């Protein structure tokens, strides 16, 4: 069965490593914070100026002056810090953040990503995404394998305006975990009960399948 959004987040959380600083984008990526593996310490960076981001505040304790990049009220954990946007992107551009998890509208087999604009229809802006994808050493894209029309979002080439070029190395969708290398998607894991054939059918880009593909473990 295809994964729920929570399960996508849960699978991505398995990629977290001890002592990593992590930036989570809006949507599915935000949910990753709920599934930090036991025994590892990570800190979440929010690009609007917050390190050590904690859970949502207890009802009634919301502070209009303490939000995350998705404009949600949040808390700050012991050891956290607050800073301005220039400092925040100094962390990001300077590669002090070890992992970026973000959503996408399209990912191409060369690692290109598009997630900020549909010409003539939707122009929300790139926010911090272009800085993040141009800088991060590890980028994981969290998204549905296909769009609402059932069309593949893993493409030979992006059709939408790019957010970054050749930067995505891993994609976790509701169907699969894929690595991008040598200009192709490499299938690493299947969602439980989802066949390789189903994943092939949902992937427009070149999909490399080598050997037995294991199911994801939770």
């Amino acid at each position, binding site marked *: 069965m295809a994964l729920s959004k929570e399960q996508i987040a849960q699978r991505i959380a398995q990629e977290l490593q001890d002592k990593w600083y992590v930036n989570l984008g809006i949507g599915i990526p935000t949910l990753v914070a709920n599934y930090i593996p036991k025994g590892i310490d990570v800190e979440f960076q929010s*690009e*609007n100026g917050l390190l050590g981001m904690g859970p949502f505040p207890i009802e009634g304790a919301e502070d209009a002056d303490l*939000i995350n990049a998705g*404009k949600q009220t949040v808390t700050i954990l012991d050891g956290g810090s607050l800073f301005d946007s220039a400092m925040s992107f100094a962390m990001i551009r300077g590669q002090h953040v070890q992992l970026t998890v973000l959503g996408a509208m399209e990912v191409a087999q060369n690692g290109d990503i598009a997630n900020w*604009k549909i010409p003539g229809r939707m122009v*929300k802006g790139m926010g911090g995404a272009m800085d993040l994808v141009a800088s991060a050493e590890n980028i994981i894209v969290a998204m549905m394998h296909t769009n609402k029309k059932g069309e593949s979002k893993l493409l030979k080439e992006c059709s939408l305006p790019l957010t970054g070029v050749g930067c995505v190395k891993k994609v976790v969708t509701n169907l699969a975990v894929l690595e991008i290398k040598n200009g192709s998607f490499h299938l690493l894991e299947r969602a439980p009960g989802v066949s390789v054939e189903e994943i092939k059918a949902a992937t427009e880009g070149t999909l490399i399948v080598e050997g037995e593909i294991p199911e994801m473990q939770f």
Partner: protein
Amino acid sequence: MINKVVKNAEEALKGVENGMTFMLGGFGLCGIPENCISELVNLGVTDLTCISNNAGVDDFGLGLLLQKRQIKKMISSYVGENDEFERQMLSGELEVDLIPQGTLAERCRATGAGIPAFYTPAGYGTEVAEGKETREFNGKMYVLEHAFDAQFAFVKAWKGDTAGNLIFKGTARNFNPMMAMAGKTTVVEVEELVEAGELDPNQIHIPGIFVQRIFQGTAYEKRIEQRTVTPKS
């Protein structure tokens, strides 16, 4: 000690004219200069170019200026919470220059710091880099980005003193410090205005040298866009 205090928003915005370029602090509705924005609505100045990370929501923040068609051009990184904005943009009534958030922050800092241009990796290979100089450093590609030129910066701080020294609170800091550095005339509204000497000089986020006018703001609404909470157990 050089005194920067003005009476109110009206006095603070003297010299504001049609066609000017402004910087406005804030991220979403967090840390926006509410009093200055209200006064800009009152003044009715038009054909403005506004540099601000976001464009407010339909009925608050910069949305108030958009409603009245006072803004000719927005320079922002993310504008996804404002239907009227989207309408004006898609219909071509409003010019929009969307730039990466980190580039926006760094360009503001550069403006205040006398750095005319710098290289950043953000946007390389995308339409953001079109027409811009690109260059390789240590095997990676970068885009040349320039400082801004803004007549006024409107900034919201938590505490300020009569010498113009500023302290911000929480994530309401965001773009406010760099914009304070960058305005030809920097106007600051604060929640609490204190005497010079009351703030610890070691804990000042922005020194008064960058500030031309400071005033005690009033009636802060501090609206929350996404009220997310953990239920009481």
